[in-house]
Structures are given as structure tokens and as C-alpha cells.
């Protein structure tokens, strides 16, 4: 137990941070849950308690259902692209740590994770442009018909997955490389003595040893995928007179209900759905870690 004088210092030192936490995190999280159980439109003076009515309405709201399907497809799509690709790239870059270009590889792969999203999304928007974009031009060399990437409902989702994966890949690679550095060397020695090739060692040593980290990266990527918004916002918006198709995602639907329809209680219910998804994913992560006996 701590001496009293020290405890007083500790609590005093924490006080400003705790006050800020209460103010900008804990109270708003409480409020969003409270709001989700009430009907509050801009016009209404009082906010009656309506239990789970908002959530019941959500299950019948075609726009919300569209949003949750799109968001889920995007989140899992990004993980499906990023995790395998990230593992392979990390292994290759790690293998070439001593190469003269190692720093260049790492910088190039990581840079998209850092740059501002809006300018980057604009670059991709031009790449995907149906009439003037280089992607259709490149496909043309192979005799593939030009596609209207940003207008087709399915392709527009694909475009968002590509953009998000491009941004997330560097994060996955950096974390995986750190994980690979921590794999005990003796395991590779043993694998080599047993006559394993480099690819077999990757498959049977690296991948199993990295399982907790792969899980961590997958969950972080899924969570950020469920929060996708800006990417769609920019890629769908208007340039040269042709608005793309606005892919309805969860955050977009929530913001529309709040700031366009002024249904704050209803929007809060959507926020609570997002919260439940994120909590569920986190619990699954911890559950799997425990089950596998991972070094969490």
C-alpha cells in the first residue's frame, strides 16, 4: 500500500487528465447510450423514454440495413486483403533487412498510412475515373472493357476496399515486422536442421508464432473498417459534373440521421450498434487469445 503523501500526489497529478476523460469520453459515451433509448428530434421539446424502439426501427430501416451490409463487407474485405498481403510483405522486407533499399521499402509501404486521407482519396478517385482514369486505360491494353468504377454499386464498394487497404497495409506490415523480430531464433535453427525451406519455415514457424499479432492487427483493421466514412465521402463527391455513387456506410447513415433528419436519438442508437460491434470484436479477440494460450 502506498504512503498517504504519495497517493495524494498521484491523485492530484491524475486529476486534470481524469477530469478531461470524464468530460470528453465517459460522459458522452453515457449520453449516447441514454439518447439511444429516447426519442429526441430537433422539434420535440421533451425527450420521452421509448425503450428499445429505436433499435426495433433500425432492424426495419432499409437505409440502415444497406449501411450495415456495406460497412461489414468493407471491414472484412480490407482485412482479407491486408492481413495476408501484409504478412507476405513483412516477411520479405524482414528477410531483406540488410539490403540497401530496406529503408525505402518500409517508407514506401508505410507512407500511405500517414498521408492525409482526402488528398490520397482524390488521387484514387482520378485513378478510378470512368472516362479519364488511368485504371481503365491500363485495362484497355489487355482488351478489358472500361468499367464505371465509382458508379456501379458493387464496384464502388470494391474501390473503397482498395483505398482502405492501400492505407492500412503499412500499419500491418510494421506491426508484423516487430512481431517477426520477436520470434525466437532457435525455432528457425530447428526448422533449418529439419530441412525446412524458407517458405516452409514461414508457413510453419512464423505464421503460428505471430498468431496473437495477426489477431490484433485483424481486430484493429476491422474496427477501423467499421468506422469508414471519409473515403466514401471523397470518392463519391462531385468532380467534373459527375457525382459518383455514395456508398452508404454506418457513420454516413448516422450523421445523416443526426444532422440532416435531426433524429438524434435514432442516430445515437446507430452509434450504440457500432459500439456493440466493436465490443464484440474485442471480446472475440481476447477470447481467442486465451484459448490459444497466446502471449498476450
Amino acid at each position: 500500500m502506498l504512503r498517504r503523501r504519495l497517493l495524494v500526489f498521484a491523485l492530484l497529478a491524475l486529476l486534470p487528465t481524469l477530469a478531461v476523460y470524464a468530460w470528453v469520453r465517459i460522459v458522452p459515451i453515457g449520453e449516447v447510450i441514454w439518447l439511444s433509448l429516447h426519442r429526441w428530434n430537433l422539434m420535440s421539446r421533451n425527450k420521452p423514454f421509448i425503450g428499445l424502439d429505436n433499435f426495433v426501427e433500425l432492424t426495419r430501416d432499409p437505409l440502415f440495413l444497406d449501411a450495415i451490409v456495406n460497412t461489414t463487407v468493407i471491414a472484412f474485405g480490407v482485412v482479407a486483403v491486408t492481413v495476408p498481403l501484409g504478412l507476405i510483405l513483412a516477411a520479405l522486407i524482414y528477410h531483406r533487412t540488410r539490403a540497401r533499399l530496406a529503408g525505402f521499402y518500409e517508407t514506401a509501404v508505410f507512407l500511405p498510412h500517414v498521408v492525409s486521407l482526402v488528398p490520397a482519396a482524390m488521387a484514387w478517385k482520378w485513378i478510378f475515373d470512368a472516362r479519364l482514369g488511368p485504371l481503365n486505360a491500363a485495362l484497355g491494353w489487355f482488351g478489358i472493357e472500361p468499367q464505371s468504377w465509382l458508379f456501379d454499386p458493387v464496384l464502388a464498394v470494391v474501390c473503397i476496399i482498395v483505398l482502405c487497404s492501400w492505407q492500412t497495409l503499412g500499419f500491418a506490415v510494421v506491426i508484423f515486422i516487430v512481431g517477426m523480430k520477436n520470434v525466437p531464433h532457435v525455432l528457425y535453427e530447428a526448422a533449418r536442421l529439419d530441412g525446412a525451406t524458407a517458405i516452409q519455415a514461414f508457413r510453419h514457424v512464423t505464421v503460428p508464432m505471430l498468431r496473437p499479432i495477426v489477431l490484433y492487427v485483424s481486430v484493429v483493421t476491422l474496427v477501423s473498417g467499421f468506422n469508414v466514412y471519409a473515403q466514401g465521402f471523397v470518392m463519391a463527391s462531385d468532380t467534373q459534373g459527375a457525382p459518383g455513387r455514395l456508398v452508404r456506410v454506418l457513420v454516413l447513415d448516422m450523421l445523416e440521421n443526426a444532422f440532416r433528419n435531426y433524429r438524434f436519438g435514432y442516430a445515437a442508437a446507430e452509434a450504440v450498434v457500432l459500439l456493440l460491434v466493436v465490443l464484440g470484436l474485442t471480446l472475440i479477440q481476447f477470447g481467442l487469445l486465451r484459448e490459444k494460450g497466446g502471449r498476450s
Partner: protein
Amino acid sequence: MSDDAPPLPRQREPFSLTNLAIDALLIVVALLMLLPLILLIGNAFKTPQEMLAWPPNFLPQNPTGENFRAVLADTPLLRWLFNSLVFALLSTAAIVATSALAGYVLAKFTSRILDVIFVVILATAIVPFEVYMIPLYFQVQKLGLLNSIWGLLIGYLVMSFGIFLIRQNVKASIPDELIEAARIDGANEAWIFVRIILPLIRGPIGALAVLAFFQAWTAFTWPLIVSTTTESYTVEVGLALFQTGFTIDLGRLSAASALVLIPSVTVFVFLRRSFVQGVASSGLKD
């Protein structure tokens, strides 16, 4: 062979075809990752006629600076950059200050209350910003801080990961004996923190500062709802709305985007190590 040697690429390998192939592959991948940014900067120098060329030119044929001149003259881009810069700097200062102090206290002081506090902080870290931003918006509105940098700042005052990062570093790198010795010499707690602890955690604080700065610099959804006047936009929001508002040509948009990208890319290239260190430590939960 020693055990603490870095594993795979230990001995310098002789020339190998495999390594050559891997290098070739990695160079292609690296260039592909950079390609969208290269194309964007190329577009910034194209004339409006060239933007309409089919098939599109990879790089501009007759580069022009006209797009840059036009975008700086016709849009408040500098104002937006200034807003973003002030917002990011203030957010970094707030996050570094709260994280350093709280991280140190939570690492080196033991008490049931502090354990509970740490768990609460970690638990809120799981909740994405998008979940509670609507109530937070109303707090900002009540304070009359919409359309101001202070309103933006309220969303970015603390970072749970920052507290976690500093706590892990203090735990791992600063021995209890050091603090005990200072106490026996009669140093008070505040002095110990400022004069002994802070200098020892400059590395992780630097990494955290870079992360915090970029987090605010690239923020989008929160500034989009808090700032609704042209004057108060951050550069991200300004750019995003700028392209929806008018039918303007892509050359100018690219020039504006390039102006936004160049400073952050430059900063990143210089601070790459502390950046990667910061991100990497996020994967190392104890």
C-alpha cells in the same frame, strides 16, 4: 552463434538469385504503393487540356505552375492549413502533457484506485470516436465553440494509447530505485517527475508527439461536423468540400492536394523512425 543476435538475416549472404528476385518484387510493390501520390503530384502540374487527354499521361508534358497559383489565389487554402496546424499543435501539446504525467503515475504508483483508473482509461480506448461524437458535438455547441479551433480541440485532448505508451516505457526503462533514491535525498514528487523522469522518456514522448500530430492533422469526421464555416475549416475538410461545391478542374484540386501532402510527407520522411517506433509499440501489449 550468440542468442541475442537478430534472427534471420544474420550472416551476410553471398549473391543469391532469390534475394535479387525479392528485391525486384519489393521495388515494384514500393513503387505501386507510391504511384497514386506520384500521379497526384503529376496532375498538379498539368494544364486543363492535358487533364482531358485520353489515354491519360503518366507525367505532365508541359508542366505548369498555374494550378498552384490559381488555387492559392482563389481558395482560403493557407487559412485552412493554418487552422490545421494550430489545431494539431495544440492537440499534440495536450496529449503529450496528459499522457506523460498520467502514464508516469500509473506506472510507478501502486494502489487499488489507480488500477481501476487505468482499466477505465484502457476501456474507453476501445470505443471509437464515432460512437460518442454526437453528444460531444452538443457539449461543444453548449460552450459556443462550434466553428473554432477550441471546439476541434475538445475532441482531441487526450489519447488513451498515449497514456498506455508512456506507462509501458516508464515501467520498462526506469528502475524504482532511481525514484526512491531521489526521495531519500529529499526531492519532492513534482521535481522528480520534471527533472528525472521527463528527460529519460524523451524518446517515447517524441514518438507520441508525432502520432498525436498526425492524428489531428488527418482528422476528418470530427472537423467536418464541428466546422461549418469556410473560415474555420481544417485543410482536410476544406479540400473535401471544395471538390463537392463547384465543378472545378482536377488540375487545381490536385495542386491543392499536393500542397497539403508535401509538408506531411517531408515531415514523415524525417521522423520516420520515431513514427514507426510509435506505431510498432501499439502492437506490443504486455
